[in-house]
């Protein structure tokens, strides 16, 4: 009982320390910006009180907590800075890939600017800066603020290893999305109401666009815990999405005249969506399979 109590206290103290670390990323002053409000903190349950439905996206990436603070500038509209501590740097990258519209800017692990909104990821943190209004100097000032905050994050973090499984030929790297959850997949590319790929909120998954012979196709790769789980997932997808393709279920033309193809290689499942032809679908699938085998050989 005493040991359990000590463990609970240690956990609570660790939690408090973690919150303090998070708050340290929102200083009173950062370059031309000065905080005009105290920091507010929200945990993963309380996040809905702050950003309503959007909270689900961050929770799908293992949100630990969020701190937010308003900053003022002498000549520009004020901004709200939100720092989200995610489950891992992979998850911080994942949140970043949820919306990739915008101009790339080199901050942290990667930044984007669009219509006044600036965001970047670094380490396990995803940082969003939203101005009250976009004016002429907004972009320049937000980049400066973001750079100052990024400097406070020690670890650069790393992108998910699954990205190495995406073949490079024809890849539009700016289209990559990383996720664990079928609802996040559906927000990017609607597949099905049910979790027919058995992502279960735990699997590592990435989807990206490819340019092939002047057309575009999508490649989805999912890594499961075991070959048996991968087999169950591909069987589930084939039964729910393409039973007409038969037992092997490799490739099928869908109602819009585009092609879908699937393959399993070990613990991974690959699906090609929206290919212009069966040949293109199978070639992209073959590229993915070959590349995955090569990657395994490289890491052994």
């Amino acid at each position, binding site marked *: 009982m005493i040991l359990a109590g000590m463990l609970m206290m240690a956990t609570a103290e660790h939690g408090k320390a973690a919150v303090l670390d998070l708050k340290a990323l929102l200083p009173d002053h950062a370059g031309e910006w000065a905080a005009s409000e105290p920091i507010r903190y929200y945990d993963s349950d309380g996040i809905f009180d702050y950003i*309503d439905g959007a909270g*689900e996206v961050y929770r799908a990436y293992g949100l630990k907590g969020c701190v937010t603070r308003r900053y003022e500038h002498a000549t520009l509209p004020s901004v709200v800075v939100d720092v989200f501590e995610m489950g891992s740097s992979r998850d911080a990258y994942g949140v970043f890939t949820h919306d990739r519209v915008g101009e790339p800017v080199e901050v942290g692990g990667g930044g984007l600017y669009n219509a006044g909104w600036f965001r970047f990821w670094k380490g396990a943190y995803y940082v969003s800066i939203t101005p009250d209004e976009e004016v002429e100097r907004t972009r320049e000032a937000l980049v400066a603020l973001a750079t100052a905050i990024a400097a406070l994050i020690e670890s650069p973090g790393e992108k998910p290893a699954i990205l190495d499984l995406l073949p490079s030929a024809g890849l539009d790297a700016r289209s990559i999305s990383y996720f664990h959850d079928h609802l996040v997949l559906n927000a990017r590319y*609607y597949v*099905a109401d049910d979790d027919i790929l058995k992502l279960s909120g735990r699997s590592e998954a990435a989807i990206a666009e490819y340019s092939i012979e002047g057309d575009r196709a999508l490649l989805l790769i999912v890594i499961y815990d075991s070959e048996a789980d991968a087999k169950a997932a591909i069987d589930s997808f084939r039964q729910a*999405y393409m039973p007409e393709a038969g037992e092997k279920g490799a490739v099928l033309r869908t*109602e819009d005249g585009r092609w879908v193809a699937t393959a399993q290689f070990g613990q991974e499942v690959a699906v090609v969506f929206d290919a212009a032809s069966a040949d293109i679908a199978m070639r992209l699938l073959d590229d993915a399979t070959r590349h995955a085998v090569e990657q395994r050989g490289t890491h052994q």
Partner: protein
Amino acid sequence: MTTRSGGITRRDFLKAGTGAAIAGIAGWPGSGGGAESRAASRIVLIRDPRAVQPDGTLSAEALGEMLDAAVATLFEKKNAADAWKSIIKPTDAVGIKTNVWAPLPTPSALEATIKRGLAAAGVAERDVGIGDRDVLGDSLFKRATALVNIRPMRTHHWAGLGTCLKNYIMFVPEPSDYHGNACEPLGAIWNLPHVKGKTRLNVLVMMTPLFHGIGPHHFSKSYTWPYAGLIIGTDPVAVDATGARIIQARRDAHFKKPSPISPPPRHIAAADIKYGLGNSDPARIEIVRIGSELDALI
């Protein structure tokens, strides 16, 4: 096996033939039965460019006039007062379910116009309440015999669109319970005992709708435009489906390519097919248009 197992997939929407179907705003795969037997719904779309000033502020006078004209037209009465009398009793306790989302709240001029209409119908001031996030605990809403539903149209991070149907999410203690599958189950809230059958009017404010959301706060003025409209009706599904079509058309025009609302606002068609709340199919919606038709988009 050539028969697909499980629930709805992308292919079911592809069969319906349009991107709008995948967007969930024009039909539901496998729909039938109740929808076909339900009478068509009548809604009013009123637009007046005077309502949105060049600097983006709203004209209270124009808003009031628009709502009065729309209500009178919807209920086929000579004036707004008579229209309100036809749907509200003097003994009603009326909750006005508004929306306080800071970047795009319900215009106060419209709330005031509704209150004026309720007064004309003989409802005492003490029997009228306006609320949003506090409605479950509000004493007036607890005893309300009638509801008026009003909110601005906007995109929504998880539901696809913030609609009249979605506006009732505050009538449940755990809104996050309804976030699953892009908030598809929202229609179920309308069948809860403390809500069912009470809504007399739905007003979807289309003054400066948000057609694309970015960031955790989901709002950028760059993605609004001065549509200067109101959509009203007794059928919330028909009102929302029509608003959704306008948003979809605006997105396609702005981005210069098909740009489906993301995630698809599935809750609108689900409210029709699964929960029987009204008509989402444009073929079953009669739109009475008043005022400007410039850049109407539908």
